[in-house]
């Protein structure tokens, strides 16, 4: 009964001649999202920054947030910069409560996230 998580991988220009990977999620971010989050992350280049796009995500629970943390752990090990955008004000608050903002900044939209990277 869990809604599938979809993940699309985009490559965008960072505006300074570099490239940025954008992981665009849709559906739910929950315990069923292991492959969509961690599986997808293993396939992306570790040499350029990653943006997580949550703007099409309808539902996030704490098991899903745990998967986001595991992704941040991997990125941390690789010394890779990650930022997120498109979270609703409510989930910005929730992400802040659990401390994720210490390891990934949250931005309103893609433009703001890209500018920060």
């Amino acid at each position, binding site marked *: 009964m869990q809604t599938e998580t979809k993940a699309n991988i985009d490559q965008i220009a960072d505006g300074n001649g570099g490239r940025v990977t954008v992981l665009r999620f849709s559906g739910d971010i929950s315990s069923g999202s292991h492959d969509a989050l961690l599986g997808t992350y293993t396939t992306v280049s570790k040499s350029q920054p990653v943006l997580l796009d949550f703007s099409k995500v309808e539902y996030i629970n704490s098991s899903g947030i*745990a998967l986001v943390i595991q992704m941040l752990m991997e990125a941390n090990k690789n010394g890779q910069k990650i930022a997120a955008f498109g979270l609703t004000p409510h989930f910005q608050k929730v992400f802040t409560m659990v401390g994720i903002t210490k390891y990934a900044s949250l931005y309103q939209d893609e433009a703001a996230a890209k500018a920060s990277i």
Partner: protein
Amino acid sequence: MVNLKGKPVELRVPSRMGYEKVAMGTAASVAKLMGFPDARIEDLKTAIAEACINAIEHGNRLNDNLCVGVTLSAHDDSLEVTVLDDGAGISKVPPKPDIDRKMHGEEDARGMGMFLIQSLVDEAEWVKAGNGKGSYVRLVIRLDKESD
């Protein structure tokens, strides 16, 4: 707005992942009827989702012959929620999640549900099974309390 008190709203959902969303939908409708602001309804939805997921997963161990019970009692200035399962319950609330320990693999990445519940509502109390009754968590969210 007319008298809100009276019998509670009662919901039973099968112990299967995803059904926490039905409890979210029911709770959101009751809270909207009571006049809660949207941001506070979001808080309540996440708290109830986490409570139901715990009841489904830990309390009823994903046995979908068992139901998770939710009651929603509208009081004058608050909404009281209980989420009931058939498990033994918990003796104490786990420590606050530590993001640094999680990031360094010293603590499970999971284990944030009860912390979120406590952070998002005005009162949260876990009661262990007893007297032939199941275990439950009781949540209170107050009408005057602004979401911050």
